């Protein structure tokens, strides 16, 4: 039955519409927390116009792992900014502010991640925009929100600051070791995702009532929301929640183990049938009825958990990760090798589901990337096209959305309202660009679906 629902899903992506078709988003964001959210909406079909201050634009454009640019752009930037339209608009400029307000009047959603009050100081803040578009949904995302002590101090923030402030890094390290920063930017990405939760809920409310609203989001507060037991535990016990390395203190057994082939394997087997399966796989069926391990709550107690994890660690040490995965499949508990990014990219399952997807971009060419991870049977989200140089779509947006004439557009360039890229890495088009590929000419029928 599920087979029928999901039959030819990858192929269906080409012919099916996207769920947020017709929703227009105006983005004034840099780095990750800001752009990631509208990136999610863009993969679901929203028309996202990304406004950048020319000629350098988003700080993330040349953020690189050890100096590596992917096809001329920072890979973090490319990852978080698919399917967008690129406007180089200098919001310090008074003519640019007028253009921005004209676009805001025709938009559904505004997203920004500046420090509190900055948009308002430019006269393009929520109080100004709601006058011309009362239905606007406006979200501001940053470290500390719009009010409170830290916001008043005008503190800057980053993902790493939130990993520190929230206790997330503390909880993600080994006992006795210093708090560990994640390799990814969980507070940025999660904040970005949580922002869209509020934005889409607000959209639903607007559909029912016609009312827009203002949303403020702090990345630290949003990662705290995901830390579950930590808060009531501290309240109830009066003790600090402590890190436990790879062991899950709420699920037993659940940990990462070192194998005979020097690989690591994660195992989880807490439910009775799963734990029984693991004990059988270890040829120790008696453990399933051992008084220390007989039920989950008993097994979770510190001494008992330590004991059973030691038994599993010794067993795993004598086997390869692959052998353990096979036994897990046979006995119905969970195990997975700790995948590297190469393992993910080459995984046949991820490929056949289309999670590893092939982008065919008119400027950057073909490449594989990760798809939007919610598969939708009627409206499959997708990565359609890649990133562009600063101000790449200026003419299209000015002519198509605002009906500006060639002369008017020329004047906007002359007064410094509009601008394009600087000739530096991450900002300019690829070196082999022919001056045409990827450009949308207003009214030529090549609309966003094809780009």
């Amino acid at each position, binding site marked *: *039955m599920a*087979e029928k*629902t999901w039959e030819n*899903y990858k192929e269906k992506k080409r012919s099916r519409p996207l769920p*947020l078709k017709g929703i227009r988003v105006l983005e004034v964001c840099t780095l990750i927390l800001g752009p990631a959210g509208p990136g999610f909406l863009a993969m679901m079909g929203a028309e996202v116009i990304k406004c950048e201050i020319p000629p350098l634009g988003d700080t993330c454009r040349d*953020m690189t*792992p*050890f100096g*590596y640019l992917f096809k001329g752009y920072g890979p973090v930037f490319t*990852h*978080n900014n698919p399917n967008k339209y690129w406007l180089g608009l200098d919001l310090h400029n008074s003519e640019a502010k007028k253009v921005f307000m004209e676009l805001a009047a025709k938009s559904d959603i505004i997203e920004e991640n500046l420090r509190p009050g900055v948009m308002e100081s430019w006269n393009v*803040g929520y109080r100004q925009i709601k006058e011309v578009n009362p239905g606007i949904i406006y979200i501001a995302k940053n470290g500390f929100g*719009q009010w409170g*002590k830290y916001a008043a101090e005008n*503190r800057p923030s980053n993902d*790493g600051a939130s990993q*520190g402030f929230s*206790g997330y*890094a*503390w*909880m993600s390290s*080994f006992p006795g070791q*210093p708090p*560990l*920063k994640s*390799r*990814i930017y969980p507070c940025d990405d999660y904040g970005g995702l949580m922002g869209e939760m509020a934005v889409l809920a*607000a959209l639903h409310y607007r*559909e029912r009532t016609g009312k827009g609203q*203002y949303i403020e989001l702090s990345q630290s507060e949003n990662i*705290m929301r*995901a830390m*579950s037991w930590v*808060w009531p535990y*501290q*309240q*109830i016990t009066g*003790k600090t929640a402590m890190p*436990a390395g*790879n062991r899950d203190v709420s699920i037993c057994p659940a940990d*990462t183990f070192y194998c005979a082939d020097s690989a690591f394997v*994660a195992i989880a087997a807490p439910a009775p049938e*799963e734990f029984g399966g693991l004990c059988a796989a270890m040829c120790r069926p008696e453990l399933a009825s051992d008084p220390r391990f007989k*039920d*989950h*709550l008993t097994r979770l107690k510190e001494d008992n*958990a330590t004991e059973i994890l030691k038994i599993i660690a010794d067993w795993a040490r004598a086997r390869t990760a692959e052998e353990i995965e096979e036994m897990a499949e046979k006995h*119905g508990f969970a195990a*997975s090798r700790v*995948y590297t*990014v190469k393992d993910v990219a080459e995984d046949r399952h991820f490929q056949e*589901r289309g999670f590893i997807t092939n982008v065919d971009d008119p400027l950057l060419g073909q*490449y594989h990337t*990760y798809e939007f*991870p*919610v*598969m*939708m*049977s*009627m409206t499959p989200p997708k990565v359609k096209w890649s990133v562009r140089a600063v101000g790449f779509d200026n003419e299209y947006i000015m002519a198509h959305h605002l009906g500006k004439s060639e002369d008017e557009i020329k004047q906007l360039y002359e007064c410094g309202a509009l601008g394009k890229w600087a000739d530096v890495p991450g900002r300019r088009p690829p070196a082999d660009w022919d001056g045409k590929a990827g450009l949308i000419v207003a009214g030529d029928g090549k609309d966003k679906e094809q780009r």
Partner: protein
Amino acid sequence: MDKEQAWSDWIKERDDPRIAHTRPEALDDITVLDLSHKSFAGCYCSSMLSEFGAKVLRIEPPEGDFIRTCTPYGMLYKGEGLNYLTEGRNKFHITLDLKKPEGREILKSLVGQADVLIETYKPGVMDGWGIGYEQLKEINPKLIFTSITAYGQFGPMSQSRMPDYDNIAQARSGIQSGTGEVMPEGKGYDEYPWAVPTKAGPWIGWAQPATFMAVGILAALHWRWMTGEGQALDVATAEAYARFDDYAALWYEGAGVVAERFGSMDTAAWLYCFAPTKDGAVFLGGLRLEMWQAFADMVGKWDEWGAADWTNLTVFTEKEQQLKWAPLVFAETRKYTNEELVNMSIEYAQKGRLAPITPVVAPVCSPEETMKDANWLDRGIFTPVKDPVYGELIVAQAQHKMSETPVRTKWVCRPVGYNNDQIYSEYMNFDAAKLDELKKAGVI
């Protein structure tokens, strides 16, 4: 326009969580059935929707869902596990045995009255019970039917017998492998068992896929509002979490490089690391050249380090440069306490040579320090929920501040089957005698 009032005061007057209870709710026209089983992701997903006002019927087997027992160190509070206490919020807790035909008939009646269904059984289980998407859409074509599982509804691994857990999703995502301390040269696992691929402590491998699904559900609701069409949604937890791997996929795709562990430094950014201090550690951030220069200036090294001559931040992100500069930076941060460094950065923003530009300096806190921080307390994240069953309990809340339809946590949790009488009377019109009969038959 009432511009005379300062922005921060104006907006606080409108989105302070203290007044949330006086505001309408965005999703209070939506009914959700949460059938999730052994999955915190399912519970978290329905929590997200419930905080925006959706009416969630949390459906468990008569003995209660196994996930209730997933609690730190086996600890119970008033009979309940601590994780479940945080994500039982705002829901009506009822029981129903879907293994019994009569239970499935009741479910079908509920489906006829619902907008969204969340389930986490292994693919094929719901179909086998006659309550899969293809069957339920006959009853309710507008239904949004959502599944969160380890491997998803299709693809070669979808028929795996392996269940879904947070630590498995984290391991499978490619993210754990690149996070952790670097193994010192010539050393091994037995000597340094913490210098290994390290997962995040919190259940991000469950909370994040759950949030992705909740976002997908809202997009599907929008589509349904436009077209009247329902649909099925599919999230595989490892895939969802992998999507947060911001640079590794394209680095591998373009250069064949596999992102490796780099401790609390950052492969893709400088200045961007945890740095040791007199009394702990701080995060240092300076993703623009001027911010890195401001840091050098702030610690009195403007001239010695030649900061005025720096022109390109990208050079500093190269590995050799990072390994060269990190010890110099750490030697400076070790001279101060966390508080001193934070205050230095705030002062620098006012008086420094590059003001208002200043490096990001943030303390690396224990969650106890976080929970006592006056800033977060003022913003309502840790305001206890007054619950008639569990008393005053702190669960993180009010993370979205909104001027019209703020989120809220109305109650934290309920014991197994607590709302049976109320909900079955409301939705099924069952009287006391019928409820008693179903209880005796083990259906509810």
